[in-house]
């Protein structure tokens, strides 16, 4: 699961029949510091997000499972939450490198 920022909407007149009525949004995937990751993508929206919203998205088969009715649809990115609050610690706060031997974490 990853962050994304809604950048716009996508409209398809002709699409797979079970996708009729599904809202498609253009999103920019983001990392934890909200820096862009890769190019724009299209996500199915089921939480009524709007342009400019910061969202939680899910990829792969689970994106199709997020659909409300038919769960066997060709969808590989879905918006599953709208972020109200986000707290992320700066990179220097924690050590992410594994060490040889015993390491106690608690």
């Amino acid at each position: 699961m990853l962050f994304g920022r809604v950048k716009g909407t996508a409209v398809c007149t002709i699409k797979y029949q079970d996708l009729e009525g599904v809202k498609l949004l253009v999103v920019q995937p983001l990392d934890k510091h909200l820096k862009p990751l890769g190019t724009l993508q299209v996500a199915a929206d089921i939480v009524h997000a709007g342009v400019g919203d910061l969202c939680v998205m899910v990829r792969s088969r689970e994106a199709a499972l997020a659909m409300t009715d038919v769960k066997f649809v060709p969808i590989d990115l879905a918006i599953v939450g709208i972020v109200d609050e986000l707290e992320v610690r700066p990179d220097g706060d924690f050590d992410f490198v594994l060490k040889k031997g015993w390491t106690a974490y608690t």
Partner: protein
Amino acid sequence: MVLGKVVGTVVTTISHQDYKKRRLLVVQPLTLPGGVADEDFIALDNTQAGIGDTVLVNREGNGARQVLNNPDACVISVIVGIVDSLYISDID
């Protein structure tokens, strides 16, 4: 499963039904010395973990659905353990 550190919390009032009643946390995977850091990700918490905890994360949908006891859950990453200690005998 991957080892990671919880570096943040996410609050979503409007979210999918499968995400209710559990917290979403931002996880940064751990790396070997000199290794390239994996991309951070969001995981659903099943263990009451908090910021700074080293956690074990299942990053696969079928395992997540089993943990959440919901055959249709649209969740990929679930925190399934809080790591007390680690022993690594050799690092190349």
